[in-house]
């Protein structure tokens, strides 16, 4: 049994962790935060992406005990300027970039991290930032078009 301290979406939690529990399972099963999804348990698909001390990680690959003392942001912790959708969420919703939605929250977290560092990414930069997020429904085009700065969103145009 290990006692760990985590700040999740601004709230501090003291938690006892027994055995090899992943951060993903901790979030979903102990804290009831279902936004991060389990799809492969091996860090291949990015559906479980959260921000750990500001960096996107696959929460299925992080042991909860190793996250002791860190700050976690999940999709539930995002909000826009007036408490509504985060601009990344709004853009994906407006541009038809969500189909089944299972990968979406992970993509949102990767995109939030990108746009914090680069507010006007090119289509190529969006693709690189999302290279660790698998989506089986959209073919990514609508996602890239929603997130890339308009003048660089060449995806969908002739090469």
């Amino acid at each position: 049994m290990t006692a760990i301290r985590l700040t999740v979406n601004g709230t501090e939690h003291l938690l006892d962790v027994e055995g090899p529990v992943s951060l993903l399972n901790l979030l979903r099963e102990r804290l009831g935060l279902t936004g991060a999804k389990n799809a492969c348990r091996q860090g291949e698909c990015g559906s479980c992406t959260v921000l750990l001390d500001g960096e996107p990680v696959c929460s299925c690959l992080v042991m909860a005990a190793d996250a002791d003392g860190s700050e976690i942001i999940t999709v539930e912790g995002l909000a826009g300027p007036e408490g509504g959708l985060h601009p990344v969420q709004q853009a994906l919703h407006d541009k038809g970039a969500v189909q089944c939605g299972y990968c979406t929250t992970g993509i949102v977290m990767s995109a939030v991290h990108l746009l914090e560092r680069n507010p006007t990414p090119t289509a190529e930069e969006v693709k690189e930032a999302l290279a660790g997020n698998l989506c089986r429904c959209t073919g990514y085009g609508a996602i890239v078009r929603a997130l890339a700065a308009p003048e660089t969103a060449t995806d969908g145009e002739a090469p």
Partner: protein
Amino acid sequence: MSDKFEVVGTSERKVDGLALITGRPVFAGDLDLPHTLHLALLASPHAHARIRRIDAGGAARLPGVALVLTHENTPSLRFTTAGQGYPEPSPYDARMFDSKVRFVGDRVAVVAAESPRLAREALSLIAVDYEVLPAALSLDAALAPGAPVIHDEADAEGIWDAPHNLAAALDVAVGDTPAAFAECVAVVETTCETQYAQHAPLETHVCQSYLDDNGRLVLYTSTQVPFHLRRIVARILDLPIHRIRVVKPRIGGGFGVKQEVLLEDVCALVTMRTGRPARWEYTRSEEFVSARTRHPFRIRVKVGAREDGVLHAIEMDAIQNTGAYGTHSLTVLSNAGSKTLPLYNKAPHLRFTGRSVYTNLPVGGAYRGYGGTQASFPLETALDRLAERLGLDPVELRRRNHIGSGETSPIFAEMGEGREGVPMIIKSCAIPECLNAGMEAFGWAHKRARPRDTGPVRRGVGMSLHMQGSGIPLIDMGAATIKMNDDGSFHLLIGATDLGTGSDTILGQIAAEVLGVRLEQIVVYSSDTDFTPFDTGAYASSTTYVTGKAVERAAREVEEQIRRVAAVMLQTEAGAVQLGDGRVIAPDGRSVTLAEVCTRAYYGADQFQIGATASCVPEESPPPFMASFAEVAVDVETGQVRVLDYVAAVDCGTPINPRMAEGQVEGAVANGIGYALTEEYLFTPGGKVRNADLSRYKIPRTLDLPPIRVILVDSYEPTGPMGAKSIAEIGINGPAPSIANAIYHATGVRLARTPFTPERVWRALREAGIG
């Protein structure tokens, strides 16, 4: 065409989009019930074996284990896991648990325990004594004389020829192909093979079951077919249908793999035996191995044309590997012909022969494209060869031969889904527009005329033409219930199953259009067998066309009721008033709001619930059409193929929601590019899948895909809702043949086996002395 509509034809946001994008607990696996038992699967390590003895005692005695299920303590009747209309056209060759296992990954036992870890731990305490049998691990091995008989059980039903491992067989002949080929100036014959591939939805199969307050069984599950599921589970467990409620929440992708009953029978039995909630979720590895796959095929195609470039005869001989069970075997086999051959109706002589073969390999099933994908590859590459032989541009060959409006194909009547088909005259066909718009956007003429590259990286372009269907005529059924609320809003209740495709949204748009309100005034509730009317489910590109028509009919009936009430209020004739902008307007301009109409119906004179239920059983299945164009760069030193550009020009009739329709095509093309280039099961010599995870089974990532440009051409299907046809499947059929034809254009080398991995391409180039 869509300019005459207000809500239809606009790219409305998804009605479930906010819940999805904020991570609300909307998926089956997000449900968190107290006292849940967690299930784990003991899968067969052998491709073919009889269970001599199974001792579950050690596992059952482990503290925290509630139940161990094996063939010794579960129902023994045979069924098909295929969620199809009743009676299912798939053989009843499966049991909940069997004393014989038929592939590596087959069900042997399931443990229900207090935690997932305990359940997995208990699996190792189940002792199984297997009599290992010779296995048939390829089509040829299963068809060889003296091959092991995979279904030797006496109680299977509906198998075509079990002693010869044939799940199904077909032979359809129109005209006289042998004589016709003798009359041709050019004949091309090719044999192609396609691989095991998987849908790989991001959400694996997951089911949670529990008893409600009245002791009824609730299955909260990721399914495409809630009503078929309810029927099949009721039969397996010998429960009355009304004791079962199936709820489909949001689903994390299906693509056909969730048109199966894979978890729910076992979850249901655990809950019935223990009274406790049960949860079963496939691991990613189990999803690859024990769920369903795209049936591999070996298909020989022979095409012949007269001197005018018009096709005279087409033969297709398809051998399908259905794996250990025959789910969707006959119907995928027949769709290989019925979703390709009608495209070229100028050929008067047609022959389709097919066999579905059992092997000791993973199980085939429904997968977007459903046979059309597998058969498009040989047919469209054969036509590319034929065009070259005739000295015609590949587009020109299609122009001389494609089906058109007002025309038919004998295949429509000959080949149905497990029985004869339904004759149909094509009423909407914008293939010429698809070819023109696709060529122009792609720059076909210019790119096709470029001299062949001679360096290490060689570019080339290829194209192909496709059709699919819109539901299964005279078999599928959709129904819709609409009821009105006293604020002028409506509830739309539909059994149809939104897999992430957006069908809840587009069905809401159809209702809003008829009722003259904004989409926000329609509350869409779907896929709950307790509360929504019957629907066969989301498969065969049925929802837009079939359920959409049911929604339109229900809305028209509601519209009539509103007119009658409003006419009394406005003291005019029901036929004289019009609905629009949330009001009912008399010819003289006076109006009442819909809220006032419903409030009167609730509380005023002649009170009644404004509402209606309507159904649609389609009499035909109008095909969407697609012209597909691909540009590739082939590195002849490494065999690497990169797709540089892709254009899909599609006729889907009226796009109810253009952005969602484009998204369906874009996503299907991306999936098809993975199928064409990288996605493939690899097996050990013993028949075990070697790459059952997302690191070694390569589905496309952002950086792997070209721009996929989708063009929706102007078209209107008079039998469809607001002129619509369905669109979800067709896009996946294009990449394999278009890319194969482009590789040929780039290098002069023909590839006859998918996927076109660097190794396979490199070998083909070396054999041709290139690179």
